[in-house]
Structures are given as structure tokens and as C-alpha cells.
């Protein structure tokens, strides 16, 4: 029973929403809007669960003095400080302490993490981009041509480079992307049907 009822709810809702997509009747639209409201409500209920899990794990780390427990202390302090400041009046106005923390600590930290990609891409490209066989060589040459064609220096060397880069992006790249996307689309539709039919149950934590 514990498993059947959720599957039944999923099947009925899934079937009704599939029908709703094709049916523009006011009743169908009202049902759909209602479903959207419920999704938001249920989604918000899950947030405290996540915060509870995070706080519990970090507290445990501190209590047991596990490796890296100092970071756990920083995480907890950051969480509560930002949470507290979020309740202060006018916290979202420019120049508030909350906004200063956001602008001068949070944004630079996030941007730094993203910028690590440049270093990692260079290192991964150096290590992995090898002309091991014909196919790998084609990938290698295409990558170099696209990289050259995508920056102004490619144009400065020869106007043909941007054209080659555009051709690679618009034809071979797109053909491969489309093939994968069609497969993904069918895969997604198949999974959706399996869920509606109750065949796929992994999303509920059991097979």
C-alpha cells in the first residue's frame, strides 16, 4: 500500500497533465494552474529539510572534531549571519551590510570558482587532447580551428578562420548535437511514459 498509492497518484496526475497539454478548455487550464500552485507549495516544504540536514552534518563535524571541522564552523557562522542579516530592515538596499557582504565577498568568491575553469581547461586540454588515431586527430584539428576562429586574432591571421569555425559549429557540430538531442528527447519521453505507467519507480527511492 505504501508503494501503490504514490504510484497511483503519479500515474493519474501524469495522465491528466498529458491530456491537459492537448486540451485548451477552461477546466483543463484551471486544473493545470492548480497543479502548478501545488508544485510550488510542495517544493517550498522541502527546503527546511535540506537546511536541517546541512546544519546537522556541520554540527556533528564540529562536535566530533572531524577533519576540516574548522570549515564547518565557518559554514555555520556564514549561514546564520546571512540569515540574520536577511531579516534586518532595508537589507536589500544598496550600501547595506547584507549587500556589502553579497557584493564584495559572495560575488568575488563565486566568480573565482568559475574562473578556475580556465586553468582546468588548459590543463585538461594539454593532457587529453592527443592525436591518438584518425578520429582523435579530426577532433583535435577541429578544436584548434574553432578556438582560432572564435577570437579576433583568428580574423587578424586570415578571414577564413572565422568562416571555418562557423562552418564547424553550424554543420558537423549541429548534426552531432541534433542526433544526441533526438535520442535524449525520445529517452525523456520514454521515461515519462514509464513513470506514468508505473514501470519506472526509482524516483521514489525503490526499484
Amino acid at each position, binding site marked *: 500500500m505504501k508503494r501503490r498509492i504514490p504510484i497511483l497518484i503519479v500515474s493519474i496526475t501524469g495522465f491528466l497533465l*498529458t491530456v491537459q*497539454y*492537448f*486540451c*485548451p*478548455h*477552461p*477546466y*483543463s*487550464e*484551471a486544473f493545470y494552474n492548480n497543479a502548478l500552485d501545488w508544485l510550488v507549495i510542495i*517544493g517550498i516544504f*522541502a*527546503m*527546511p*529539510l*535540506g537546511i536541517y*540536514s*546541512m546544519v*546537522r*552534518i556541520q554540527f556533528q563535524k564540529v562536535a566530533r572534531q572531524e*577533519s*576540516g571541522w574548522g570549515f564547518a564552523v565557518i559554514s555555520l557562522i556564514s549561514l546564520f549571519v546571512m540569515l540574520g542579516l536577511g531579516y534586518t530592515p532595508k537589507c536589500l538596499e544598496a550600501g547595506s551590510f547584507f549587500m556589502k557582504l553579497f557584493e564584495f565577498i559572495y560575488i568575488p*568568491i*563565486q566568480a573565482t*570558482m*568559475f574562473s*578556475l*575553469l580556465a586553468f*582546468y*581547461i588548459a*590543463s*585538461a*586540454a594539454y*593532457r*587529453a*587532447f592527443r592525436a591518438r588515431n584518425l578520429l582523435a586527430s579530426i577532433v583535435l584539428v577541429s578544436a584548434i580551428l574553432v578556438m582560432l576562429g572564435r577570437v579576433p586574432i583568428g580574423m587578424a591571421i586570415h578571414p577564413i578562420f572565422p568562416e571555418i569555425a562557423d562552418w564547424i559549429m553550424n554543420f558537423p557540430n549541429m548534426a552531432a548535437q541534433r542526433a*544526441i*538531442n*533526438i*535520442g*535524449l528527447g*525520445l*529517452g*525523456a*519521453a*520514454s*521515461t515519462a*511514459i*514509464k*513513470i506514468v*505507467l508505473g*514501470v*519506472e519507480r*526509482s*524516483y*521514489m*527511492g*525503490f*526499484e
Partner: protein
Amino acid sequence: MCKTIRLLLGLVAGVVLCSLSAVCAMEPAVISMDYSVTPRILKSKPVAKVDDVSSDGIIAVKITWDPLDAEILPYIENILIYRSAISDDDFKLIGTLKAESTEYIDASDTEARIDPAAGPVRSNWVYYYKIGVLTREGFIFLFSAEDYIIPQPVWFDIEKIAPFIATLIFFILVIGFIQVARRRGADLYVRPIAGMNEIDNAIGRATEMGRPILYVLGLGSPEDIATIASYTILARVAKKTAEFRTDLIVPCNEPIVMTIAQETVRNAYLEAGHPDAYSDDMVFFVTSMQFAYVAAVNGLMLRERTATNCYFGKFYAESLLLSETGNIAGSIQVAGTDEVAQLPFFVTTCDYTLIGEELYAASAYLGRDPLLLGALKAQDYAKAITMVLIYLATIALSVNIAGITIFVKGLIDYL
């Protein structure tokens, strides 16, 4: 006599002055009034039609009329739209439009109406419409629409016929193959997926080294197909780690995903016969921020020195940051995602990568459940049909046989 002359002169002077002041007050752009416009409007009486265009839960009537002659447009102030219900035969003003307008949609969701008594248009009521042409002098010429209309809510959106047929065919294929699979059992061939086979070896390696396994479900939301596929692989990994008594770490990015992952791992440990080995601390929420999550997971990898890292689900810019760190740490790495842009990063840094739908096929591949295998087969056939259609359309457009080309182009435009 003198009095009369003075009066006449005064009158003439008054007329001249009035005319002069009128001329002076007139701006050069003003078009002089032409009262002959009235018969011309009557002559070019616009023909108005009404259509039911109800869709998306909105009742709507579209009124269209012939455009007014360009030469009379400067004399027209506005076009007015009037509506009357059969139960209430006086016409109410529902809209004012520019003189050059040629259509108006009277929809049930339009809030601003000039005459509030008009109310929104409703389904199954009989409506008459009139169009008023308001001239700059303030005359209104009314013309009735050719017919009355009874708007009806639509039950099926005809514009979605193509996806409807495709869905129906696909649905039939899936159900059909599930039936075939039921009869033939698990006797349906699925091509071996190297990455999937490697998971077991990777778990074995972690056990030998006595180091934990890291499982990352990606940044997807719980309803993403990649995340759903990832739960299945997580169940398999958790079952193995339960059997081998290897530590499993599952840091999550989304609270609902975390809840489902906890349930998945708990059930896997139960099925493996080691429910006591499970703890909620194995599956935990870190943060929903993309790069803060990366920092936390990278820290875990380096501190815990994980032997095997599994990345299955939706990944974005963090894919390379995670897998390159794993590579630096010397872990065995297996990945799978449907995010095409991230595949090159995983391919370069991981030992095995599941590409796109290979990830979706995971549940069928691992479980060998006939029902899931059947659905996988249906997917293959649908793909074959799509390929055949693409090839046929390409050939039809390339050979340029007039009839076929026009038909295919029309079909493509329609779709």
C-alpha cells in the same frame, strides 16, 4: 443709412477678422475638414466577420473587417467595437482602436472594458458585434458584423496535432514492447555499456583500498530525467557498498533530491541485508549554490581521498571542476550526463563516460526488468522511425520533384 453702412462695415470687418484669426490659429499640418467624407465612408462600408478563436482556457471572439480607404483615414478618429448579447439587445462599447486597425479580439480574460456593464465574453452565449467608425467631427457610423456567434470552449488544440500523433505512436510502441517483453522475459538484447560494467570494478577497487566512494547526483532538479536515471545507478552502487561494507558519500545539491537519495540508499542497504550499516549522514544536503557545492565536494574528495567518484545526472560548468579535481586526487571516475556541452569535459577527465541516453538506459540495463527493457526497445524503434522520416524528407527536398517538395515543405511549415 449711415447707421446701416456702419453696421454692414462692422459685420464685414468682423467676418474678416474672425477668418483671419481662424487662419492664424490653424497649424500648417491640420487638414481642412471635408464634409464629403461621410458619403465616402458609407460608400466603402467595411465588411466585418466574426470567428471563434477560443484557446488555452480563454474564450475569445476575433472580429475582422476590411481596412478603411487610406484617403479617408485622416478624417477618422477611432474605430469603436460594440457587443450585444441576445438576452440584452442594447450594444455596449467594449473597445476603441486606431483608425487603421483591422481586427479586435474580444477575450474572456481582457479586464479593461470601456463599458463595465459589458462584462467578459462567455462560452455558449449568442453575441452580435458592431463596428463604429468615429469621424473627427464626432459622427459615428455603425456597421454590423455579418453574422452572430456562439463561442465554444475548445477541447482539442488542433495546432498540436503533430505532437499528439507522435505521442500516440510512441505510447503504443512502449505499451506494445512492454507486452512483448512480458511474454519473452528479459530476452531482449541491449548493447553492453562499458561505463556501467566498470562501476562494479570501481567499487571493488575502493573496497580493496579501504577508501570511500563518492556519488554525485549533479545539479538537476528531482524531475529531471537524468536525475531519475541517477537514482537507479545510486541504488545499484549502494547495494554493492552495503555488501562490501565500503563507505559511501552522497552530497546533494537539492533538498528533494536528497530526500529521495536517502530513501534509495536506505532501501538498497535493506535489500542487501545490512540496514544497520545505513545512516542518514551518508546522504546529506550541502548547498543549492553551484560553485559553493563544487567547493564542498572538491574539499570532500581531497580530505576523504575517495577511491572512486561517480557523477551521474545533470551537470553544468561544475563538471570539469569536479572531475579534474578527482583526476588530481587520482580517483577512478565514472560519469554520465545528458548535458551535451559537458560531455567533452567528462570524456577527457573520467575513465568511463555514459553519453546522453546511455544514462537513461541505465535502469533497464542494470535491472534487466523486462518491462524496462521493453520501453528501451520502443525508444529504439521510435528513433528508427524518426531517422527514416528525416531521410525521406531530405531525399524528397533534394530530388526536387515539384509535388513532393511542395507537400514536404508544407508539412514542415505546418509542423
